[in-house]
């Protein structure tokens, strides 16, 4: 069975969804694809359709408008799927706490595997989070990896 585990950890395909953040995290995520950081070294590809993706990378606090669309995207993704919440907005909706149209972090709606702190987190932090999630899926994740 370790061939399957090896395959699953070596080619995590991600899909990105911005739930109303300030798109600082989005441009850092896209910057992670470019030559200097290059996510493809780990086999990570940014896919367009939820059917093709394993990991849902979410940035931004959930606005009420986008909530059910986010859940629908999550449902469309095939099983073994994970959620990565990138940025303090996604973790807790921090800077937009008092805004009436914001519902807060991603975990109020979806089961989140990895939180990436930072506003916005640097591309290295995002890559480190995805690699930690891969190790966690491997089972040999070190102690502090949740």
């Amino acid at each position, binding site marked *: 069975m370790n*061939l399957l585990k090896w*395959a699953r950890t070596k080619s995590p395909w991600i899909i990105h969804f911005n739930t109303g953040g300030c798109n600082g995290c989005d441009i850092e995520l896209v910057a992670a694809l*470019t030559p200097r950081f290059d996510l493809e*070294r780990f*086999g990570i590809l940014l896919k*367009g*359709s939820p059917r093709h993706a*394993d990991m849902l990378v979410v940035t931004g606090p959930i606005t009420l408008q986008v909530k059910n669309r986010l859940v629908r995207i999550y449902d469309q993704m095939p*099983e*073994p799927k994970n959620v990565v919440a990138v940025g303090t907005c996604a973790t807790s909706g921090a800077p937009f706490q008092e805004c009436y149209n914001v519902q807060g972090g991603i975990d109020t709606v979806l089961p989140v595997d990895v939180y990436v702190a930072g506003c916005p987190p640097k591309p290295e932090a995002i890559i480190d989070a995805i690699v930690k999630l891969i190790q966690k899926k491997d089972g040999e994740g070190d102690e502090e990896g949740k």
Partner: protein
Amino acid sequence: MEITSLLNILIFPGIIFLLALAFFYEWVDRKTFARFQNRYGPLHTGIHGVLQPIADFFKLLAKEDITPSASDKLTFLLAPIFYFALPLATMFLVPISSQTSLIAFEGDLIFVIFAFTMMIITVFLAGWSSVNRFSTIGSMRAILQMIGYEIPMVLVMASPAMAAKSLSISRIVEWQSLHLWLVLLQPIGFAILLVCLLAELQVVPFDAPEAETEIVAGWKTEFSGRKLALFQLGRDLKLVLASALITSLYLGGAHSLLLIPPIIIFLAKTALTVVLLSFLRAAFARFRIDQVVSGIWKYLLPLATLQVILIQFGFGR
């Protein structure tokens, strides 16, 4: 069916070898495409990421396989199988380990052309059966594009046959080993075949049917899990088939050269063609579907007919 030819079919120049070649060439393609964009490409799976396509394939095999309720179940199931089987079957017609392919008969070139058209029909059925707006538009674009490049491709595949006066790829390869390579005799044909095969592979200048930024993933939007794995493998096999075809028809195919076995020559040439295709993929922006069709009809078609006329006057022989 003697044991040897069964072994040939199953193992050496047959299925196992072709699948390995498909995975290897996808790695070559992704690596060169990344290097042209000044980045690394797959690096951490196997040495320099060689096993990355295999990892992708097995991961997709293990994923949940969703069939949309509104889709036409049977076609949705069969399309990936056809998309994978067609290029694999056509590869047996191309000479790999010796000057004659596993199955060589007069007219196998016509079968190859027929197989190329069937592949696009499967693409159309795949897109049409997954009832999703993006797939519908993607499949319509695939058919439109096929109408565009089909005729120049047939003309340009026929011109080597005219030069070698035979419709079998193996005999064309033999003919080339006696005369000059056809790329020197018919350079226009070589260029047009390259462009048409780019369109056949639905690669960047011609990837309107699965344009990621316009229609999500085009006709592949609804496929996931095993079906997507078969589509991925089918795409790689088509890449191998396209480069093998260019090598056999225009670059002299597999022939032994002062005690280097033909298989090595064949691999070298096809690898170079894959690098060339990958370079073209990195150098262009995507054309709109109407630009593709009008461009091909306005420029490639007259050139292809010119090529055929030239052969009649004895230039291409």
